[in-house]
Structures are given as C-alpha cells and as structure tokens.
C-alpha cells in the first residue's frame, strides 16, 4: 500500500533531526504531511510528549501513526479504545486460566511436597513460595500499554479513538502519558526503558478532559486544500492520469462545499481515485461519476443531493485550484 520504501540516506540519519527531514521522510513512506503536522511530530520527539491528533474521520490520523512507525523503523503497538475498555484489556491481565490449569495439574504433586513438612507452620512457609510463583511474569499477559513500555529501543504506541473510552480510563492513562511508567500492584512500577512515541486519536465523540489535553501536544488535521490533496492522491495512487487527478480533486473540493451529512475526507478521495483507475477512466463524465458516487458519499440523502448538483459540480471550472480550502 505504501508508495516507496525508505530511502537509504534517511534510514541512516536521524529522521527527526529537523522539521524538513520529517516532512521528507514521511513523504518517503507515502504520507504527505503539511508543515504543521511535521512540526508537531518534531516537537513530540524532542519534548517527549504524546500527540493528541484530532480531525474528522478519514483525514489520516491513524495513518500518521503507522507512517511514523515506518519512518522511524519502530514497531507499532495499537490500542483500540471502546466503551467499557478497562485496565485488564489495556495494560495487563493475569492468565487466570493458565494459573488454574497449573494448580489443577500440580495438585497431585502438592501433597507429597507438603507432606514432608513436619508441621502446619512449615507447610505454610513452603506454600507461600509457591504462591509467589503463580503471580510472576510467566502468568502475566501484557496488553498494549505494558508492551509499549517494555519494548527495547522504543516503539510507536497508537491509542486509537480515545474519545470512545470512559473518563475513568482516561484518568488511568495520565500516569502512563506523563511519566511513561505504570504501577502493577503485584510486581511494582514498570518504567519505560525508551519512552515510546505516543499518538492518541480522537473523533470528538466527547470532549476530552483538560488533564489529558494538558499532557499532550495537540494536532488538528483539517481537510486538505486542493494542492495538498493532489499531492496526497499522487502519492497514494501514482498510476492515475495527472489531468484526471486535478479534475477529481477539484470535484471533491467542490463537493465539500455542499451541505452534506458526511463530507468526503481524504480516504474517500483516495478510494475514489483507485476505483477510477480500476475502471480505466480517462475523464470524469457524469454517468461515470453517478455510478461511482457511492464511494465518496456514505448516505443516500447525500448521494441524492450531490446527484442533483452534478452538472454544477462537474461544470465548474478549475477555479478551485488556487482558492480552494
């Protein structure tokens, strides 16, 4: 899916040395970043702070984290948030089944081991040692957050759609985000050897707490203007004809000015470009657009509204190329 592999000189030099190198590096892995996005990444890696990425769906929030991981050559660990997500899913869990299985199997060995003990007190002492065995690393199931802290050499941690989680979980994240450490009662404090690069994404389902926002850098990705979007399409769908690309981006930019229930974002534009390439389209003619409109628009009433305006949207000259956005 990515356009090009990592250029050699970038993999040697530190890709986060300057804003320009980040911009170029991201372009190298197929992510066309605006200046502000690159600056945000630069600040995040230099101040060692998490980035909170906001923007409408499909604008490239998750993709940014994926591309950064690829750029920096780090493993990506992803935590998808949802309503009711709690520590056992996000941080760690004791492998209860395994613990139980072991005790069941070892039950027969327990008798002889304890049977040699002369009295109750010494049997207790022996049992205590066994008990500690059952709450050790062997029985610990690390979940994404713990994994991210323990990776040697750092990682990119993506906490996706944080706004879908509960307030309680958000509060629980605070320790992790500010100190890059986590307390596990049975084991102690786990501290990151190399702090991971953390991305949080939000679709604004609810407002996030101030405490969380304060600990993060904030990056809002708006819908791109004409030129940026053309570059993105060119990077993502390189096989598309240049004239068709300009035409289709102009169309989408015009479409965004309509009052729609769900405005098409970048991912829809890219999908549409791919669809047009598959259909061997050379130009945008109304019947083709009408047939493929469902790639761009996700609601029936939007499709109807756009259909009615189709002549206008297509007929409008490329005036959008200088002043769109």
């Amino acid at each position, binding site marked *: 899916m990515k356009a090009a592999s990592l250029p050699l000189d970038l993999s040697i030099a530190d890709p986060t040395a300057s804003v320009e190198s980040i911009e170029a590096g991201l372009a190298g892995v197929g992510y066309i970043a605006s200046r502000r996005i690159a600056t945000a990444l*630069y600040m995040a890696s230099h101040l060692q702070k998490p980035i909170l990425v906001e923007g409408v769906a499909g604008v490239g929030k998750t993709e940014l984290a994926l591309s950064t991981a690829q750029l920096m050559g780090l493993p990506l660990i992803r935590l998808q948030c949802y309503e009711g997500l*709690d520590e056992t899913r996000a941080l760690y869990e004791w492998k209860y089944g395994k613990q139980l299985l072991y005790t069941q199997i070892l039950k027969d060995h327990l008798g002889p081991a304890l049977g040699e003990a002369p009295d109750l007190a010494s049997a207790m002492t022996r049992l205590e040692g066994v008990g500690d065995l059952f709450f050790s690393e062997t029985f610990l199931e690390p979940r994404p957050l713990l994994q991210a802290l323990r990776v040697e050499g750092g990682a990119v941690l993506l906490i996706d759609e944080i706004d879908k989680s509960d307030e309680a979980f958000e509060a629980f994240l605070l320790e992790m985000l500010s100190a890059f450490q986590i307390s596990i009662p049975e084991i102690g404090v786990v501290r990151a050897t190399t702090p991971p690069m953390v991305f949080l994404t939000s679709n604004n389902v609810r407002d996030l707490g*101030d405490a969380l926002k*304060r600990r993060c850098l*904030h990056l*809002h990705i708006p819908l791109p203007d004409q030129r940026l979007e053309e570059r993105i399409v060119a990077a993502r769908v390189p096989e598309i004809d240049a004239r068709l690309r300009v035409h289709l981006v102009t169309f989408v930019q015009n479409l965004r000015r309509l009052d729609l229930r769900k405005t098409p974002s970048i991912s829809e534009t890219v999908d549409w470009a791919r669809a047009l390439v598959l259909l061997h389209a050379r130009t945008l003619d109304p019947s083709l657009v009408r047939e493929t409109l469902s790639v761009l628009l996700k609601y029936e009433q939007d499709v109807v509204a756009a259909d009615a305006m189709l002549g206008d949207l297509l007929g409008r000259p490329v005036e959008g190329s200088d002043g769109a956005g």
Partner: protein
Amino acid sequence: MAPAEPAHRVLEDFIRALRASEVRVSPAEAIDAHRALADVGFADRTLVKDALAVTLAKDAEEVTRFDACFETFFARREFTGCADGASAAPSASLEEIIVAGDRSALAEAMETAAGRAGAALIQLSTQRGLLTRRVLDEMGLRGLEARIASLRESEEPGDSALAESLTRGRADLFVQAKAFIERQAKLYASETGRRLRDQILATQAFTSVADEDVRSMEALVRRMAKRLAQRYARRRHRAKVGKLDVRHTIRRSLAHDGVPFDLAWKRETIERPQIVVVCDVSRSVAAAAQFLLLFLYSLKEVVERLDAFAFSDRLVCVDDLLDDETVDDAIILILERIGFRPTDYGRALEDLFAPHGARLDRHTTVIILGDGRSNHAEPRLDLMRRLSDQTRSIIWLNPEPVTYWGQGDSKMDAYARFCRVAKTCNTLKSLERIIEDVLRTYLPR
C-alpha cells in the same frame, strides 16, 4: 541555548493575549512553549507559529483562535527584533526619533513605554483613552511639548521650522499611539467584553432579550445543551470492576467439572433518561418559545430518548421536524404550524394522551415548558393527575414569576400540585440548572 530575556517576556505577553482570546493556557503548557521555542529558535516565523500552536492550542476551535491571535500579536514585532534586544539606542529622546524619522525606533520606544504604562493589562475597551494618554506621557510627550513651545518663542533661524516638523511629528505620534492601543485592546480586551456580555445574557429573562442579542443567545443555548449532553448521554453499562457474579460463574463452571475457568463479572446498567418535553408555543409565551424550542432542538440532538411535542390550541409531535430540518427552519415551521394561537391546556393534555399515552410510563420524565395560562378553558386537572400517576415525574418550567401563578387565567397553581418540580425558569442559567437536575437523578455518580 536559553533565549534572550526579551523573548521570554514577549512569549509571556503572547500567552496572556491567548488567554484573553479564550485559549486556555496552563502554566505547564507555558513551560512547554518556552521549551519548544528554545528548541526551534526564532528565525522561521511559520515554524515558531506551528511549534507554539501544537503546544498551546488544544482543540480545533482553539487552533482557529490561536492563529488569529498570533497574526494580530506579531503583526508588527518580529521575533528576531525582540530576541536581539532594542535595535535603536534606548537613550534616544522622542525629539531625536522624530527628527530622524526612525519609525522602527519610534515603535520600539512605544513598546517600552507601553510596558511601563501597563497597556497590556487593558481589560475593557473603555480604558483606551486613558491608556493612550499614559503611553504618550511615558514616551516623554510633556518634554516634547515644552520643547516645541520654547522653539516657537526663540528667535534663532531654523527653530520655527524645527518646531513645525516636531508638531507634525507629534500629530503623527497621536495617531500611532491610538492605533497601538487599539491593537492592544483587540488583543487583550475584546474577549473580556464578550464574556461579560455572555454572562449577562445567561441571566437575562428570555422575554427581554434584544433582537441584536438573539444570535449570541442562540450560541449560548447550543453550548449549554452540548455540555449537558456530554455529561449525561453516553454510557450504558459500567463494569463493576472486581465484583464477581457468583451465579453466572458457577453455572459456567459446570462444563469444567465445577472448576471455575470462566469467570463472569457483574455489570451495572445505567438507565438512560426517557424524556417527554411538551413546549407551549402560544402567543403568551411567544418571546420565550423561540429559545425553548432552540434548547429542545439542541437537546434532541444529543439525548437519544427524547420525544418533543409543541402545542398552542392543539398538540403535535415535533420529533420529525427537529430531526430532519435545520434548527432555524424547524423553529419557523413549528411556529408556523401551531404557534401564536390561544392556548388550551386541557385540549393539549387530551392530545397528549390520545395517541401517545402508551409512551408515558414509569420511566418517563415529562418536562412541560409553558405559562399555564389556559384562556379560561377547561384545565382538565383529571388528565394532569393521570399523567402524574402514570409517569415518573412531571417538571414544569414556567417563564412567569411565582407571584403571577393563579392570577387571571393562569391555572399554574392548580397544575403545580401534580409536579415534582414547578419552577420559574426565564433565564438560560435556570434552564440549565433544572435540566441538569433531571438528567443527574438518573445517573448514579
């Protein structure tokens, strides 16, 4: 690598300007901003702007305000100039600056004088005159005036010409100082004024909102409904962490010969409020109706189980209108369809029961917005009693003060007996407080 002292001060001023334009900046974020600046330097304006934006602005609206504030604040001064310290000799007097026609030195002097006069502490736009005067005084206006006077009296050749040019310089200085203070006011004072206005609006009676304030009032209503909804309309289940559901666990363990491999945890279901709102849009409450409908619309967008009805002589369900139309159209359509006619509470209650009686059960809270003035028609207290028996509770919000209840054709005192809460509600503040009470009683917190 530590930036020069003046740069620190500029950043502090900028952060204060941000706070004044409602970008909340905490001390921790201010420290981040300083660190960010120390890292990127001051050479590249876009870089500085972007670096500060990601550290200081924390949501999309704040980013917009940040951009605007940045452009205004750094309209004249450049970071490089400030970092290098004063460009002109600070000892240059006002006269020398004017004679030399050195605009950047003049601006520099004005900046320094403004710092001494506390121009950045401006709170309200009414302080502009005073502050302009103070800045001019700090720049040495008195000295300049004395000098002009003495030059005019002197006989020396060239002195009168000098006096002329100084007078022109002084006029120019006035213009400059005024513009400077204008900008300061725009930076630091515009939002204070707006906030003050919002505060007043929130406590002003619906009936006395002036036409020009309606727009800002609407914005307030929307913000309020969103705030309420975010707090109360989201979660359905909450896992009771660490509480074992013994019954389920034992049942599941049967498959494993009684060994409880598969644990079940207790969950608690949070009851969503089911709300029925009945809104009076008749002539007597016409002024308030618009805001009540607006509030209803905003609430409808965020509370899932909300049925909305509007009535004057007859009652109709307005759910579809609120769902499908934009807010302005919805309000106009509702008012067109049934608004501004004489009220009949008895008929409205009949209409509520006839087709919608099934919807009213013991989980339902009924909120009635109206003045209880029934134009001497039969009030149908029997239906009101049935409503109160059948539903969880009735909350009546009346735009009229309590002393008017029961006066004239008002049946409010009679209706109030069946309500759990019957209150006067004619300001946004009270509306918010009451609705919040309703939503909160459903959620264990």
